[in-house]
């Protein structure tokens, strides 16, 4: 933590706060990655990394990314939930890093869920 100091972080924070003021409030989305043992074994960490990479690369502000445990659908792991604005939550199954990129672009940013990858119960 020597080179990347807290001073750098302070600048990042000020910049992020400034951007938030100009941003439209309805762009807010929540992405949840399942990280139970089953998810981890199926590659959930790489899925999580792909989500963070996509947000960083495309500079998508206002997306909350969190983790959850096993939800009992182990055969569909890695599982990712996406909720955009007031729209209902969508659960995606077998989410590879490639699928993450499409989901972030089309659903998280574009607001259009990708039906073929959804888990429907």
């Amino acid at each position: 933590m020597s080179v990347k100091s807290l001073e750098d972080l302070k600048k990042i924070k000020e910049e992020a706060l400034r951007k938030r003021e100009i941003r439209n409030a309805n762009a807010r989305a929540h992405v949840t990655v399942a990280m139970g043992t089953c998810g981890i074994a199926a590659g959930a960490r790489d899925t999580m990394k792909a989500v963070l990479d996509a947000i960083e690369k495309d500079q998508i502000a206002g997306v909350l990314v969190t983790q959850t445990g096993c939800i009992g659908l182990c055969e569909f792991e890695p599982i990712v939930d996406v909720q955009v604005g007031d729209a209902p939550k969508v659960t995606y199954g077998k989410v590879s890093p490639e699928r993450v990129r499409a989901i972030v672009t089309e659903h998280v940013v574009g607001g259009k869920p990708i039906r073929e990858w959804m888990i429907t119960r």
Partner: protein
Amino acid sequence: MLRELALHILDLVENSLSAGATRVTIELSEDTRADWLTVRVADNGRGMDAELARRVVDPFFTTRTTRRVGLGLPFLKQAAEMCGGALTIDSAPGVGTTITATCQHSHIDRMPLGDLPTTILSLVVGNPQADFVYRHSVNERVFQFDTRPIKAELGEVALSEPSVIAYLKEALKEG
């Protein structure tokens, strides 16, 4: 099953978080002179009584209600023992749990450390409710990463903002 030590660490920390931990310390120490590798995950979660601590290394035991087998801890125990080490559980209800896995550093069957920066990044960003300390030492060289000063500085700014992700990645890569 999990092919990297980093993935086992991720699995252990997920257990800690499921047990309600708000503070998790992850220590990885490599002593190449004594040829010894130690991984320790210590949390302040709800802890386990002696009976539960004994049962969690049984492959057919899990606390989850969605299925009936666990496998995370038993596999790590097996991996440690296969490489001349051991898995120990130190836990007390209401206090927390510390899991320690050791093994011979140069053992041919020792699994690779794997992608530790990505593992820590996933945990830190994905669990904003908890604080993490990550300490990785190789002999006397020590790298330490602590989320508390970072969160104090960020205030209400989320850890998943693009510029913060970039910052955390950079900070972890330095280690």
